[in-house]
């Protein structure tokens, strides 16, 4: 329309279909951010996503890039195989906390340690979403889940695992950051981190990961708005936000 400017719309590479995510779930926001960054960096032709076993398994229905589905937890090993064959592609895994920090921990750590030039988008919602809200490695102390009905007891279940902190000492990791998608400011920050991670991969620096604290209304049994409060009060104190590692590239 004359005199009007379009300031927001559907990103070019986010398919125009209804998604299956619950209202208030963080996954759909993260999908959108990925589509936006892929468009802005103009890497749709080269990007390959490895979706997980988890709520995001159907990512290929939503983001318009090539994808290969991995077995539960094996994403970074699959990414290793793909990237070694296609070194000029942007290969990234998309993983939940169960996928990445429980069943897939070994694959993650070793891919990171080898400095595979891949990116991991780590969606930390503190529960196993797809299987109905069981305890995840990142469930915070005291948090009730279907398998910790009295709350997570660190004496029995161990304390939550902090993956950015875990990976930071490895020489192969070059960009590690943690953010959330529970506020407009944080959503912007998350997008910036995803962009930085992909840019780092385009410079072939090594392993990059963005950990995103993400709402899960259905399994937290909270309203979408209450979920944002839980991220603030329950999660951020346990999982401090910010950049955990950033290799300073030499100016060329």
């Amino acid at each position, binding site marked *: 329309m004359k005199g009007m400017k379009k300031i927001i719309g559907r990103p070019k590479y986010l398919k125009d279909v209804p998604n299956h995510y619950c209202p208030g779930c963080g996954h759909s926001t993260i999908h959108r951010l990925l589509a936006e960054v892929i468009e802005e960096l103009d890497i749709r032709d080269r990007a390959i996503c490895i979706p997980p076993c988890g709520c995001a398994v159907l990512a290929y229905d939503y983001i318009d890039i090539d994808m290969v589905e991995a077995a539960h937890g094996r994403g970074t090993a*699959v990414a290793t195989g793909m990237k*070694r064959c296609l070194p000029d592609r942007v290969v990234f895994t998309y993983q939940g906390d169960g996928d990445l920090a429980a069943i897939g921990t070994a694959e993650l750590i070793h891919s990171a340690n080898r400095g595979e030039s891949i990116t991991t988008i780590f969606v930390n919602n503190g529960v196993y979403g797809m299987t109905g809200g069981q305890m995840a490695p990142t469930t915070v102390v005291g948090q009730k889940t279907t398998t910790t009905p009295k709350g997570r007891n660190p004496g029995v279940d161990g304390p939550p695992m902090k993956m950015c902190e875990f990976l930071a000492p490895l020489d192969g990791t070059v960009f590690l950051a943690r953010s959330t998608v529970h506020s407009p400011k944080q959503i912007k920050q998350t997008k910036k981190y995803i962009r930085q991670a992909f840019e780092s991969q385009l410079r072939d620096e090594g392993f990059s990961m963005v950990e995103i604290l993400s709402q899960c209304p259905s399994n937290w049994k909270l309203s979408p708005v209450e979920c944002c409060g839980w991220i603030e009060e329950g999660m951020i104190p346990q999982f401090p936000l910010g950049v955990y590692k950033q290799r300073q590239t030499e100016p060329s």
Partner: protein
Amino acid sequence: MKSNEKVLLRGSEAIGEAALRAGCQCYFGYPITPQNELPEYMARRMGELPGRTFVQSESELAAINMVYGASATGARVMTSSSSPGVSLMQEGISYLAACEFPSVIVNIIRGGPGLGNIAPAQSDYFQATRGGGHGDYRCIVLAPGFLQESVDLTYRAFDLADEYRIPVLILGDGMMGQMMEPVVLPAFREDLPKKEWAITGAGKGKSRFIRSLLLDVHVEESHNWKLYRKYQRIERREPRSDSYAVEDAELVVVAYGTAARIAKGAVRRLRARGVKVGLFRPITLWPFPAKALAGLAESVGRFLVFEMSMGQLVEDVKLALNGKAEVELYGRPGGVVVTPVELSRILSRRYNAMRHEA
């Protein structure tokens, strides 16, 4: 090493060199005895050849998933391990089968179950021929009996894998891996097949994906039907076997791999004494050469299955013969390798008992 010239190679090197010549671009694996010479060979040779990738993975689980990723891009790819490691790979092999990703997996079988030992065994027959992981699927299973055949079958395995988009298993054991024999090597492949289906980034075209999650039961059923029809095609076209001294045989030994080498020695000894025994050797374990074996039962009334496991191969023999002939089992599990002399004694005892009955 020159092509089409005789060279003396160790078993594991023969497999490795044949794979490289077949265009194997990537190798992923984790150390386990008795197959370490193979990854070591690949590490060295892949460093010398252009465009090859070798990764020592953190586990067999990781190795098979690296195979999965590399195969998804259309590369020719191989891994190898021994029994406990191949057990760990079963999840990945199921996914390879589901997504129809071509791949070559070498299992240098050792005695089991559990950690077992590192001696030659055939106890992973069921695991290999019945799929091995979860779901309805098959892998092509090749069982070379001597090193030239290891070379030829490894070379062919990559073509089979690509042609049918299927995981191909090559079974051997520590004896086959360690022994040396002269072999003639094929030329390096240059005309590798194009793979339209490979996932390499969407480029300017439509984005694509490959998955095995098929939530709609009808979609999953039709995928299973598609796989099944492919397996039927393979069963019609690809069974291979070999036989020795079966023409006038009254008793035929059925054995593959190392067991078949031993059996051939035993049959040869007995033939020299006029004992009418022969050998039937499956080369493909899946598809099992059932037709060829059943054909033999037209003239042979009794079969003795010699396997280095306890009652695995014998099931396929019985299924193939379907009551047409008597089938007996002589199994030696646990990594024991009997000599041809010992086996010839067993055979001649059975042979005499059989004549006595008649």
